[in-house]
């Protein structure tokens, strides 16, 4: 076996940033893998793709994708992406960030971007806690779960992210785990081609912190949890899709058509400028 041969996805990675900083068995690498795969299968022009991320472990992903990419401040990835996308609509601007970044400090931007139906796919790595800062509880941490800031068990109810996204107006909402790589890749491809705001939640293992505190010491433990608990049910009512230890409903929850902010904006501008020319 000659190792000179390059990995088929090598071209989609920013080679001078590799290897990535993520822990052994961290799901972020798999998400990066699936994202790169999606790009290669769609063969989009990488020069027209912008990856925007926020703060947190997965926030580093913008450093690893061989595209234009920007690593914003805590929670602002979506807001930044909106600016970039509206300024240059021909770009594919993708937000990849974590559950804490997108739904705690950045929660406001998420719901409003979904409401506006901005043409941006948002991929959320949900590892149930704040990894980068050492495993504190997040808006997705299950009730009773242990983290470094819920030493007596979590007393906060977690967000059901797919429900939140659907209720906020996203036109495409899906949930997979890092074990369901093929389906995740397909979903990412779909989201990249979808007009409007699409959201993909990726349940991702954090064995070093969340797993360690919650009786899943290794990444394999966490992956087998995903394997046991997951069931695929497309068009399932997102309101009933809370994640529990015994059941994780996966699938495409929402896939609808709705004019996007971008389309309405362009139409509006064309209309106004048309009037002005007519005015002369």
């Amino acid at each position, binding site marked *: 076996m000659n190792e000179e041969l390059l990995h088929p996805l090598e071209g989609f*990675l920013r080679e001078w940033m590799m290897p990535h900083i993520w822990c052994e068995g961290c799901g*972020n*690498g798999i998400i990066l*893998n699936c994202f790169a795969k999606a790009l290669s299968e769609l063969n989009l022009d990488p020069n027209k793709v912008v990856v925007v991320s926020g703060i947190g472990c997965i926030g580093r992903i913008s450093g690893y994708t061989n595209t234009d990419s920007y690593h914003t401040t805590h929670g602002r990835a979506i807001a930044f992406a909106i600016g970039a996308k509206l300024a240059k609509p021909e770009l594919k601007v993708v937000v990849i960030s974590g559950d804490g970044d997108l739904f705690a400090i950045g929660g406001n931007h998420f719901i409003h971007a979904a409401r506006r139906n901005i043409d941006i796919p948002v991929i959320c790595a949900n590892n149930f806690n704040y990894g980068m800062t050492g495993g504190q509880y997040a808006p997705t941490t299950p009730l009773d779960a242990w983290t470094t800031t819920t030493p007596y068990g979590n007393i906060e109810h977690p967000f059901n992210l797919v429900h939140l996204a659907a209720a906020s107006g996203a036109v495409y909402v899906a949930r997979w785990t890092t074990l369901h*790589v093929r389906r995740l890749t397909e979903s990412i491809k779909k989201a990249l081609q979808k007009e409007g705001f699409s959201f993909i939640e990726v349940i991702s293992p954090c064995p070093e912190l969340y797993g360690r505190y919650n009786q899943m010491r290794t*990444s394999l433990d966490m992956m087998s949890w995903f394997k046991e608990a997951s069931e695929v049910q497309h068009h399932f009512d997102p309101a009933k899709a809370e994640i529990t230890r015994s059941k994780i409903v996966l699938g495409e929850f929402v896939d609808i058509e709705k004019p996007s902010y971008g389309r309405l904006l362009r139409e509006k501008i064309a209309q106004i400028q048309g009037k002005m020319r007519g005015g002369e």
Partner: protein
Amino acid sequence: MPLRIWRKPLDADKIKIPQAEIHIIKDRCKGCGFCIEFCPREVLETSEELNVRGVHPPKVKDENKCTLCHFCAAVCPDFAIFSIEKDCGGGC
């Protein structure tokens, strides 16, 4: 159909299933073991050797069993493994 099926099918030798060539970039591996655990054909196993990171990368147990489903490559968080179709000029 109750008839016991026991013969080697007549076309058994004619059916060409592509042979795999598995590549492992050892020093990228962080040793999560996903590729070994989730390979549907149990093609891989943990090796004895230590890589630069001090973990045991996977090694190929039986390359002939690989069906080139590429799941190992797809589930690897570290881009450390992939498989390609063996070019054996019709030799295999």
